[in-house]
């Protein structure tokens, strides 16, 4: 078998090269002797015969080389020789090697770490069967906004579509739950029939809801998440004895979802939605929609299908409905949302950093290639082919990049373990961030690409020189030719340009962040301890609270407030139904009626009818609070009065509105005394009279303008499931101590109520977390790139000084002053920096536009940032070239002129 022979012969030669060579030599010797013998036979003396034979055959050494060249093992042999050679040159130059490996490790490591995040969040498919078939669906308003589904509209989508295998509605809200090992505040989702089959996921333990449980007013049952089951039930195998009290109502635990099922993100409890299938409600957008498209149906077809239904609804109900169209988006896209821009920004920044790192190493390689020109020329002269030289360069640069890549992957593995601590909590799918095979393969590919590119560049450089000239040029070649210096200049210019782009991105993000944190929220956020105190909510129909329930709730809140108020160091205690800014998304929002003397509606049908006239409605956030809340938060009263003692449950119900609402809705009129109907928020149709106007707060977050707010009194309206009852304590005392004391008091008064303490500043920083994360990383990358660029500039200028030592000596001898030398040398660095900065600014002008959605209060071409960053880079460039310049200035012309 010839393959076998190929292998065995090759291996024999590889294993015992000497024996193989000896055999070959013997064979050549024999050949020579026989040839000589024929000459002797022709009458030559043995001496002459041997000479003649040698002449005829050529040098035995070259014959041997020719034969040795044959066979695959020879390639390996060459490679091995190149590797050993590379090892020798690399270890023989430890400074260069260490700097190159560390630089590449930094670039590849950072890139790999960020890629693992991008892979988990953006690239990997969701852990459900045929995930591409799962979509989120919305109603679409005439202004193009996507809105949640109303009961009646969802019903029509469900029954009339032809393209969905299943369609489900769900909501998500916080809930107080007890019955496990301890009471807790967790995420709770009511889901319609078909929710789990949409995902194609079965429970890990137990079952999904039975028809008796799924129907309206069915048997109460709950399915819990894996983490909840582990934490509050200790992973108990037998579910039959388990019950939970959710918001005061009893549920039997019927199932546990597998660990991989996390939808909606972080949800702990799923219960059947009491969806009222007969509900005619087409404007209460309470439901999020999810569906699975039938196999073979495209996204566009599914969308068209739902659009047609939406248009039918619009045609039938006209202005009574808000929808005009339907929106369909693949679930993975919907999950990722705006995070995509941030992540791609990061990936871009880290990609540029990798480029800068490569440029630095390329600069070093070119410099070294110049220094090795003579050696290379010698090898070419001795018969090394271009292929061999290229191979040698590739081996060397691949050795570098593999070492750097290995170190980089270790760095990345370490970084990935640290990531959870700094990743913003709202980043979806972050549990999936791991160094898996895909990420490792990616790192390997990046490593090889870097190595191959660097090797090819170095070989191309080295291959260009004229061999003779290199050999003849004496030791001057040591400092490199003008051409290689020019190439390094180009490399460094590119490096500076890339660095500038990262710096500008970091600068823009940084300035946005500063603007954001210095924006006044409209209240004093310091020294505020918050306590989420999730009192049970006893709702009646429509989610409304009865007067007794309101009174009980108010009494409990008042009693707790009074006890907390008595704590040493506590200046004020306020009660509110949600925290602005930090959890602004939890604030309810909706349309209210302005009665203008009309009779308040008797039921919600009439409410709907009266709401048709847009001249007599308004739109606002809805907040439940007590008068102490405004004092505690430091929100000023602008006009009228606060809630007061006379505002009892049976008295006239009052409201306080924010300045923004007063400005928007009653620009020319006095809002005080206006009568509002906002019963759609709490199910209570008793109208509200505006008695006061308070200062604006940036309720929805610091990056959103202050919104219109209607505050109602918790003593009159109570807090229903839309609220998260929160007590705010203004105190200068140490937070830990206050929390400890407060917890003891509340647990004694209401042992079943879950508590969650925090400080307002903590809440705010949680809200800022994703911006901080992005800024931190881009800032780090920018700093790393800047240091690399500084090293790059230094390298070029220092080399240039070394090369021009004689020239500088002559200049000094001719009377050049130190300032002239300084200008000469620093000018070189500055020229590179200026050119690089110009290119970088041009590129940034094109690129930073993509950042617009991440910025706050500045434009993507903010001149201050651009100028500042360019200045910074210029300074660094001057500093980096000052060091070699100092050396040049100190040159003694005598030594310099003799410098070889």
């Amino acid at each position: 078998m010839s393959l076998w022979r190929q292998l065995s012969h090759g291996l024999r030669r590889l294993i015992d090269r000497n024996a193989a060579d000896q055999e070959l030599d013997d064979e050549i010797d024999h050949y020579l002797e026989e040839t000589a013998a024929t000459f002797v036979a022709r009458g030559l003396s043995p001496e002459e015969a041997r000479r003649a034979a040698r002449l005829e055959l050529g040098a035995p050494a070259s014959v041997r080389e020719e034969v040795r060249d044959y066979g695959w093992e020879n390639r390996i042999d060459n490679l091995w020789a190149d590797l050993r050679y590379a090892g020798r040159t690399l270890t023989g130059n430890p400074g260069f090697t260490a700097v190159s490996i560390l630089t590449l490790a930094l670039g590849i490591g950072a890139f790999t770490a960020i890629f693992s995040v991008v892979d988990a969040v953006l690239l990997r498919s969701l852990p459900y069967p045929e995930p591409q078939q799962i979509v989120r669906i919305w109603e679409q308003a005439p202004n193009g906004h996507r809105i949640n589904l109303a009961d009646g509209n969802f019903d029509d989508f469900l029954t009339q579509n032809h393209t969905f295998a299943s369609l489900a509605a769900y909501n998500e809200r916080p809930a107080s739950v007890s019955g496990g090992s301890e009471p807790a505040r967790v995420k709770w989702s009511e889901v319609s029939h078909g929710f789990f089959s949409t995902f194609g996921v079965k429970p890990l333990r137990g079952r999904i809801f039975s028809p008796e449980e799924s129907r309206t007013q069915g048997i109460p049952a709950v399915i819990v998440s894996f983490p909840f089951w582990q934490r509050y039930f200790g992973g108990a195998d037998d579910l039959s004895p388990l019950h939970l009290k959710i918001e005061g109502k009893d549920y039997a635990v019927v199932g546990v979802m597998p660990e991989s099922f996390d939808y909606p993100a972080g949800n702990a409890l799923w219960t059947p939605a009491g969806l009222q299938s007969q509900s005619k409600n087409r404007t209460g957008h309470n439901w999020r929609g999810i569906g699975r498209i039938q196999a073979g149906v495209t996204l566009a077809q599914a969308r068209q299908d739902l659009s047609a239904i939406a248009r039918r609804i619009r045609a039938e109900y006209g202005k009574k409905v808000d929808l005009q169209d339907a929106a369909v988006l693949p679930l993975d896209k919907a999950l990722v949302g705006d995070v995509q821009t941030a992540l791609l920004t990061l990936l871009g920044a880290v990609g540029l950093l990798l480029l800068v790192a490569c440029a630095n190493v390329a600069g070093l390689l070119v410099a070294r290639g110049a220094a090795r020109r003579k050696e290379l020329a010698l090898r070419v002269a001795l018969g090394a082919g271009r292929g061999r030289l290229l191979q040698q360069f590739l081996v060397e640069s691949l050795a570098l990049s593999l070492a750097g890549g290995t170190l980089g992957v270790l760095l990345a593995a370490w970084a990935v373990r640290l990531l959870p601590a700094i990743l913003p909590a709202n980043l979806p799918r972050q549990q999936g961030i791991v160094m898996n095979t895909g990420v490792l393969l990616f790192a390997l590919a990046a490593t090889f690409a870097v190595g191959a590119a660097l090797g090819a560049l170095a070989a191309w450089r080295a291959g260009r020189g004229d061999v003779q000239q290199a050999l003849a040029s004496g030791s001057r070649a040591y400092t490199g030719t003008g051409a290689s210096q020019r190439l390094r200049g180009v490399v460094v210019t590119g490096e500076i340009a890339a660095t500038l782009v990262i710096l500008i991105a970091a600068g823009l993000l940084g300035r946005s962040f500063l603007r954001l944190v210095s924006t006044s929220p409209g209240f004093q956020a310091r020294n505020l301890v918050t306590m989420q105190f999730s009192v049970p909510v006893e709702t009646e129909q429509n989610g409304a609270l009865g007067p007794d329930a309101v009174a009980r709730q108010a009494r409990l809140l008042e009693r707790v407030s009074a006890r907390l108020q008595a704590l040493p160091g506590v200046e004020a205690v306020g009660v509110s139904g949600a925290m602005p800014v930090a959890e602004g998304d939890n604030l309810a929002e909706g349309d209210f009626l302005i009665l203008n003397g009309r009779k308040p509606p008797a039921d919600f049908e009439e409410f709907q009818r009266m709401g048709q006239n847009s001249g007599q409605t308004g739109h606002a956030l809805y907040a439940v609070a007590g008068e102490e809340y405004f004092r505690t938060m430091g929100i000023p009263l602008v006009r009228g009065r606060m809630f007061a003692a006379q505002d009892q449950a049976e008295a006239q119900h009052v409201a306080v509105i924010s300045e923004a609402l007063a400005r928007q809705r009653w620009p020319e009129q006095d809002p005080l005394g206006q009568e509002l109907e906002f019963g759609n928020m709490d199910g209570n149709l008793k109208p509200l009279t505006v008695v006061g106007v308070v200062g604006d707060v940036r309720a929805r977050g610091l990056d959103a303008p202050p919104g219109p707010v209607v505050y109602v009194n918790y003593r009159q309206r109570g807090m229903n499931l839309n609220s998260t009852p929160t007590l705010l304590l203004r105190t200068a005392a140490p937070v830990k101590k206050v929390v400890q004391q407060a917890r003891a008091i509340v647990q004694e008064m209401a042992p079943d109520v879950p508590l969650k303490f925090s400080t307002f500043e903590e809440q705010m920083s949680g809200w800022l977390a994703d911006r901080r994360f992005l800024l931190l990383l881009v800032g780090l990358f920018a700093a790393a790139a800047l240091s690399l660029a500084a090293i790059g500039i230094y390298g070029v200028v220092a080399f240039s000084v070394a090369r021009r030592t004689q020239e500088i000596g002559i200049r000094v001898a001719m009377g050049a002053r130190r300032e002239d030398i300084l200008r000469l040398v620093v000018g070189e660095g500055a020229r590179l920096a200026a050119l690089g900065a110009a290119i970088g600014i041009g590129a940034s002008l094109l690129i930073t536009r993509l950042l617009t959605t991440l910025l706050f209060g500045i434009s993507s071409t903010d001149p201050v940032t651009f100028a500042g960053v360019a200045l910074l880079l210029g300074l660094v460039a001057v500093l980096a070239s000052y060091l070699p310049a100092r050396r040049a200035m100190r040159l003694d012309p005598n030594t310099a002129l003799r410098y070889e």
Partner: protein
Amino acid sequence: MEEQNTDLIQGTLDMLILKSLDLEPMHGFGIARRIEQVSRGVFKVNPGSLLTAFQRLERMGWLDSEWRQTENARKAKFYRLTPAGRKQMGIETANWNRRATAIARLLKAEA
């Protein structure tokens, strides 16, 4: 004086080696001399190419080799055809004949 071209026709060395070994095992020099003599000096074999060809043919499984005494009491590496080598020689010879006849016909037609 005009130098005679003694280079082998490209790709024929393998066939000539196989053919030379058809009669009896031989060492490298013997094969070279045989090719030279039988071709009456038209072809001269370069030892480098010859020894490389041995490596190749041996690995293809067409030749075997062993060290033996020669008739004049020197040690030499003798090559011998394997059955596969014999078959290969048949194929190459047939191929060559076919092509040579074709070329001869073409040249005749031109004349």
